[in-house]
């Protein structure tokens, strides 16, 4: 019980600190912007630990962070194998294939106004559907291993990418295209020098959306059948064994993988679209 009271006191103290920083003179500094969410997050973590211990919450309901951390560090080989199976083999390969396919399709569509007008609404419609539902079908077609997971990811990634690339390719102004004409530029020159670079902000928007979808697709597809390795497999079997510390460890790995994937794309975006007003510094 004492631990629970301590948790409440800790919460009040931390919030007091945060309010002081947020309304203090240095509230706009880089340090404050980092410190406040960090204090908030760490406080939540500490409270979680204290309350779970203080109230002796059983592990099958909520393991304490320290237990999760211990499981994480002691199961690194398993977690790594799962990560490779689900993220590298399933999500990443599907992501790459899906993005490339979307580019090819977008350029094909781009050459015909009719196709663009027809395919874009369909693509928009499909992009809003719960495409993970195709997982059982694709698992049936491509087997239990990573190929079927990659296939699910391809389908999930393809439509949002297609929609974004096509929209991006429309981004140039009539003046810019006329300019290209006055230089007697061909289709591919115009595409390569003008329209693709101009489309990049849209492309990266799509890439970021797709990165989250890819990981979701790869994990959920494993719920429909997988070899005895993989993040989704581990989550569903550990849940069955009530080994929630393992489930949480996988979730931590998934969170880290997801945010690194997203962050990595955001960094590349910064480099590639440095010229875009939203990315210009200062």
């Amino acid at each position, binding site marked *: 019980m004492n631990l629970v009271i301590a948790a409440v006191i800790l919460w009040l103290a931390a919030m007091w600190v945060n309010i002081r920083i947020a309304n203090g003179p240095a509230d706009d500094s880089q340090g404050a912007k980092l410190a406040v969410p960090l204090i908030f997050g760490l406080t939540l973590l500490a409270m979680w630990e204290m309350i779970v211990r203080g109230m002796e919450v059983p592990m099958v309901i909520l393991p304490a962070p320290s237990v999760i951390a211990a499981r994480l560090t002691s199961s690194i080989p398993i977690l790594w194998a799962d990560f490779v199976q689900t993220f590298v083999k399933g999500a990443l390969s599907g992501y790459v294939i899906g993005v490339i396919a979307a580019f090819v399709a977008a350029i094909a569509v781009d050459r015909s106004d009719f196709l663009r007008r027809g395919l874009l609404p369909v693509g928009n419609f499909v992009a809003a559907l719960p495409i993970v539902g195709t997982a059982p079908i694709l698992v049936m077609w491509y087997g239990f291993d990573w190929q079927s997971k990659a296939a699910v990811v391809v389908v999930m990634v393809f439509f949002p990418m297609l929609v974004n690339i096509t929209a991006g390719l429309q981004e140039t102004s009539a003046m810019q295209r006329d300019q290209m004409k*006055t230089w007697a530029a061909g289709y591919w020159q115009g595409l390569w020098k003008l329209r693709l670079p101009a489309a990049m902000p849209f492309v990266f928007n799509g890439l970021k959306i797709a990165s989250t979808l890819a990981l979701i697709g790869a994990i959920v597809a494993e719920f429909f059948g997988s070899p005895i390795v993989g993040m989704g497999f581990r989550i569903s079997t550990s849940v069955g064994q009530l080994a929630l510390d393992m489930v949480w460890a996988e979730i931590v790995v998934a969170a880290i993988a997801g945010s690194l994937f997203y962050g990595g794309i955001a960094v590349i975006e910064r480099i590639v679209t440095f010229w875009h007003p939203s990315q210009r510094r200062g």
Partner: protein
Amino acid sequence: MTMTDPSPVISAKGLDLTFQTKDSPVQALRDVNLDIGAGDFVSFIGPSGCGKTTFLRTIAALEQPTGGTITVNGMSPEAARKARAYGYVFQAAGLYPWRTIAGNISLPLEIMGFSKAERAERVEKTLALVDLEGFGGKYPWQLSGGMQQRASIARALAFDADILLMDEPFGALDEIVRDHLNEELLKLWARTGKTIGFVTHSIPEAVYLSTHIVVMSPRPGRITDVIKSPLPRERPLDIRDTPEFLEIAHRVREGLRAGHAYD
């Protein structure tokens, strides 16, 4: 207009252009006859919507005439474009933000297949021509509006076409910068001997720059007067205060009024 040169660089005969719009057709040009000789500086002036842009775009093969003929260097506008006969400067600078100034200027050269060495050489040369030495490595958004417009002129000059078509290139700039660029443009014209077609709304600008001023009037767009300037080719800025200058300006203004009186 009568020229010393027997074969005009640009020649329009009975040119008609009608836009088919949803509600009613718009006749943007009607029976336009104009010859522009080599080395002329021709300004187009007239009220908004009188077809100045349309005429320039027709020369550049960006619009197809619906009647009459137009030739550029004795060829069809398309053929002239393929032969890289002209550079076109749009009203907005339209530089690519992802390319440096040098990269922007070398863009048409890349499209036209110039070698890397030659591109570098021409970029340097044209940067100097528009007074932008040392700014090649900067990005467009790091430059002022006037500098951007100069870069866009440089882009049209880089491949050294004999004809330069400019559609209100200085429209968005302030008076002082505009004066400066006008002066620079005249120097450049004197140095290179190019044929220039120039759209403007400013009477002083037209008179200051041109050897010929084409006055147009709207609905339907047509040429109402072509004024040949008696001013010498060498023109300091203060020529604008001389009686000759004011006299031509007056004639242009009268021409514009007459055009307006039609409707």
